[in-house]
């Protein structure tokens, strides 16, 4: 090979490496961007008057002085719609039977779409389901629902073998020449006055209970459940992990026993998380019965096993990083072994151990598979601390799964799903950032 091509190859090789790094960063960006962007919309969005009404009526929050006046305005803006609907109903009665039949089902659709958009018509009985008591609370959903009022959708399967094609026809054409015709223009032009969108900062999304399976309110039960599970797992794992690390570093003599223990630890680290879940079910629940059925306690125990290897390793690393001279100094001053560990080694390795703890916390908070069979339920109230011993809880990771696969109105509550994912990711990333910063400080200290 000539020198030129060798140099060229060298450059190409470096390029490949850089491309790999770039693709990795791009993947991270690609995944985080929608989560951060759309997740933030669970907190900051354009809320309609219906949102404020829900806040006032269901959560006792908002301005009781100003709201009625605003509601009056909105009602006034909505008034003509119900007028037009009533007029058209009257007109239908005068129609011939065949034409009336034609319009009837189409009209029913319009009426329903309007109820979804604005909530039940004035004078109607209050529906039983909470989700039917209010109109659209978010401006983005309002516009989608408005579109459904304005257009009728049909799937065209006329081409055999291919997927169906969506055909939209403006309803204004359907009802051309009737008294309903002006409705569509009116709605399009006055939707602002009817819904009165306002930029809303709904930080209580995190601290509000959810109502009517997450269609209203926030995610507090999930946040609290995740907190319980994580802290519970740490409660069991920290003492076990730190003690094991102390034993392995300070007491155990290298030999068969220790290498055997180490193999066990690394095997434990390699066990798939779902197997931890099954084990938790088979052992904690079905064998030793820590609780009658799923509970936070069982979930915490399962999670603590999962994070043990990480914790032991990081604690070991931190303890081994303590200069041997500290130990010598303490011993030469007449300190016993225990005393040396408690007064010198542990304090010096504390930052490193803390880093490991923080990282494990992030891991425990984000794990789903181990809690599916041991702790998680889809719907539940926030637990009191003593209830964690025998009751299951909603938790962020599980409910993210549940809301985006099994919820009856998956598309309607995308913002809640994104909000949950964002909350979980932020919790985990904050913990990891803390760990990164702590590690940087430690290495600085050790260097200088």
């Amino acid at each position, binding site marked *: 090979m000539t020198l030129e091509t*060798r140099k060229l190859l*060298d450059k*190409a*090789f*470096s390029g*490949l*490496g*850089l491309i*790999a*790094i770039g*693709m*990795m*960063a791009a*993947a*991270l960006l690609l*995944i985080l961007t*929608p*989560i951060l962007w759309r997740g933030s919309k669970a907190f900051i969005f354009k809320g309609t008057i219906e949102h404020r009404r829900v806040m006032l009526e269901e959560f006792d929050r908002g301005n009781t002085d100003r709201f009625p006046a605003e509601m009056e305005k909105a009602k006034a803006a909505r008034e003509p719609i119900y007028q037009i609907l009533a007029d058209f109903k009257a007109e239908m009665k005068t129609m011939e039977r065949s034409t009336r039949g034609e319009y009837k089902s189409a009209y029913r659709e319009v009426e329903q779409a309007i109820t979804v958009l604005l909530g039940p018509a004035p004078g109607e009985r209050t529906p039983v389901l909470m989700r039917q008591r209010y109109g659209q609370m978010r401006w983005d959903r309002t516009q989608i629902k408005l579109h459904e009022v304005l257009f009728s959708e049909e799937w065209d399967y006329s081409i055999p073998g291919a*997927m169906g094609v969506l055909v939209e026809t403006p309803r204004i054409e359907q009802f051309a020449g009737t008294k309903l015709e002006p409705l569509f223009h009116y709605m399009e032009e006055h939707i602002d006055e009817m819904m009165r969108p306002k930029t809303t900062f709904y930080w209580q999304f995190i601290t509000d209970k959810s109502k009517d399976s997450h269609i209203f309110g926030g995610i507090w039960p999930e946040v609290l459940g995740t907190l319980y599970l994580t802290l519970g797992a740490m409660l069991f794992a920290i*003492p*076990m*992990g730190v003690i094991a690390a*102390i*034993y392995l570093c300070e007491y155990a003599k290298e030999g068969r026993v220790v290498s055997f*223990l180490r*193999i*066990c*630890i690394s*095997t*434990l680290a*390699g*066990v*798939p*998380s*779902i*197997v*931890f*879940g*099954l*084990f938790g079910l*088979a*052992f904690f629940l079905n*064998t030793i019965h820590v609780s009658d059925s799923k509970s936070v306690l069982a979930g915490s125990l399962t999670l603590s*096993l999962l994070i*043990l290897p990480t914790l032991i390793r990081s604690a070991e690393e931190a303890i081994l990083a303590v200069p041997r001279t500290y130990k010598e100094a303490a011993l030469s001053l007449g300190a016993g072994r225990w005393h040396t560990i408690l007064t010198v080694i542990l304090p010096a390795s504390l930052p490193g151990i803390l880093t490991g703890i923080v990282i494990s916390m*992030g*891991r425990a*908070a*984000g794990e*789903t*598979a181990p809690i*599916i069979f041991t702790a998680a339920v889809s719907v539940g109230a926030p637990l009191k601390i003593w209830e964690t011993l025998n009751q299951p809880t909603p938790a962020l*990771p599980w409910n*993210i*799964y549940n809301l*985006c696969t099994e919820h009856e109105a998956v598309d309607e509550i995308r913002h809640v*799903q994104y909000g949950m994912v964002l909350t979980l*990711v932020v919790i*985990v990333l904050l913990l990891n950032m803390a760990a*990164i910063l702590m590690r940087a400080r430690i290495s600085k200290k050790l260097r200088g």
Partner: protein
Amino acid sequence: MQKSSSLIMSNATGQRQRMGALLGQGFLLFITSLSTFAVFFIFYFILKDAIPFFKLEGFKEFFTSTAWFPSGEPAEFGALPIFIGTGLVTLGAVVVAVPLGIAAAICLSDLLPFNVRQIVKPVIEILAAIPSVAYGFFALVVFAPLLQNHGGAILSAGTWMILGPILALLVVVLGDLINEKLESKKTGWVVFPILGGLALFTIHSLASRLAGVEISSGTNALNVAVILGIMALPTVVSVSEDALQAAGRELREGSYALGATRAETIIKTVIPASVSGILAAVILGVMRAIGETMVVWMASGNAARIPDPWHNMLQPIRTLTATIAGDMGEADHVTGSSRYHVLFAMAFCLLAFSFVMNLASELIVKRSRKKLGKS
């Protein structure tokens, strides 16, 4: 005060002290073994609930039949499609994660300056820290619709991204080899454009063929494999970077001193010296992919049948982990039916596999450490 204290303890004190030390150490050993022996507990309890399945249904159907109807009458437990699905996505994840991960690791250990590395490392850590359910959510809610609606475009763009750099390298190497054979300086300017054109044509024709593909469901093996690959990346990168670093500076300097370029140094001396560590990285990456639950459960389509043809990544599949997660809710574990125990049988397969893989990677790392002399 202290000066007068005697060096000699009474027999009783000495015994008490020794007993105390022994007790304390015993306590520590007890706690330590408690946490380490959890492994045995796991093996025991999974196996305990797995054995009834094999007793009831035998081995043959489980490993060879393709009919998976656990709730049928009679129930059928042919898990072959599930094993194949698991293998397929794991293989796909490896194809994504390994080349990318090793290239990134080389870049981190040998190419990037220190301060850039300080920025890239957190990127890897964040990739590793994002919870699997968030990856699953992304796969299901963002990536699957994208694949479904713009499948062709994504596939062809992917082809360009993957084949482009590889073929570019190939063109340089091949062109050089041909030139060497021809031994004429003039032809050099002809060979490269011809090869380059050929490469471009190959990619283009392949990409445009893929651009016409319609993906009927975005939740399929490809989706899961890509996401699992991204999830396995941090493991592959950090473990193989450690291996590359362990090769040492002396080795590199030796190669540079002989006039090798950086690429030659890395390919001919550094990688061979750290090949076992890189192998361990690949194994750990495989374990990460095969043990992942949420992503596959949410975005694989969960169809328990073998894709047609078997390597068709665009069809939905089902994996062991997702089957366990999904079916346990329905399995009647109170009566201890086969439906319940079959899931433990699957878990045992997973457990045994990861145990063997883990041991293998430990052995490889240990052997390589011995070889490097731990200096």
